[in-house]
């Protein structure tokens, strides 16, 4: 730059190497946190068990290969995904164990405010692992409950009857419920599972943490306007 005119990129060169390093590290931290919509480094209180994480990732991979569209066709059947260039997120939210009764269980899934405010949910699926009880299929009532931001008034967002055939993983689409949750400024989804008669724990929850219920969601940064291309 001409003498006396300050050049932004040259500023670094005049700093001592240690100062230069501190400046760059501070820039890196600020850049990553702002791109993740995080006000500060998250304080991780209860990291997920490695077994539950590996089981969930394995389950997701199986699910993806089962439902993968043939190569060359976008997942939503021909529409070019308008999210090109927009930052997307894949979220795994593991259940906080709620209240247990002999006929059912309540599970809570919590999403951060930053995510709720700056993204839109593209897809959300609840994964539940059932324990075998004999060979008959069993009816299970699944209620998605939403509480308002104060957490007091709880409403039923949807109720589904699931016929649980046998032991193993079952999935339920909760995309609508999570999106409307975000729309109401709340961040906690409660799932209530109720069985007809005394089944004991209908879910393998607490017995082995590797089959912990979880919600797998895909979200995308909200952009001011969106151009759909066909």
């Amino acid at each position, binding site marked *: 730059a001409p003498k006396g005119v300050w050049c932004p990129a040259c500023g670094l060169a005049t700093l001592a190497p240690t100062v230069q390093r501190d400046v760059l590290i501070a820039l890196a*931290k600020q850049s*990553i946190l702002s791109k993740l919509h*995080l006000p500060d480094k*998250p304080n*991780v209180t209860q*990291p997920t068990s490695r077994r539950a994480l590996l089981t969930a990732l394995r389950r997701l991979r199986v699910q993806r290969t089962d439902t993968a569209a043939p190569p060359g066709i976008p997942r939503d059947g021909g529409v070019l995904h308008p999210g090109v260039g927009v930052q997307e997120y894949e979220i795994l939210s593991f259940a906080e164990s709620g209240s247990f009764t002999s006929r059912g269980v309540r599970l809570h899934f919590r999403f951060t405010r930053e995510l709720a405010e700056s993204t839109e949910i593209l897809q959300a699926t609840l994964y539940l692992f059932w324990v075998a009880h004999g060979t008959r299929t069993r009816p299970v009532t699944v209620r998605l409950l939403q509480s308002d931001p104060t957490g007091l008034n709880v409403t039923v967002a949807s109720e589904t009857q699931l016929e649980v055939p046998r032991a193993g993983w079952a999935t339920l689409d909760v995309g609508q419920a999570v999106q409307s949750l975000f729309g109401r400024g709340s961040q906690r989804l409660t799932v209530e599972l109720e069985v007809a008669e005394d089944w004991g724990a209908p879910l393998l929850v607490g017995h082995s943490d590797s089959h912990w219920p979880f919600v797998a969601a895909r979200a995308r940064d909200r952009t001011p306007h969106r151009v759909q291309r066909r």
Partner: protein
Amino acid sequence: GIDCGADSRMCCRKEFFVDFKEIGWEDWIIQPEGYHMNYCAGLCPLHMAGIPGLAASFHTAVLNLIKANNADAAVDSCCVPTQRRPLSLLYYDRDSNIVKTDIPDMIVDACGCT
């Protein structure tokens, strides 16, 4: 080459690796172990203006001759990223959910003169 050497003065790419363990971020960032925060630095004399990294074509060379001969007409030229790629992160958010995302244009692969 596009990477700065010890005494490079021309526009080039400076490597700088931020190790997440060193800055105490390894508890919430599961993968990767660090961030290649490369940046561009160096001089862009007028005859170098408009050379995108190494891809100097015949057209660019002619354009530079014109510029160099009309130095007073040309404006300053800056050393900027010409190729970038996303930073893929797997991390815990504040509710201990696990999030995977690709932050676009975070890693500089090549530099060049505007």
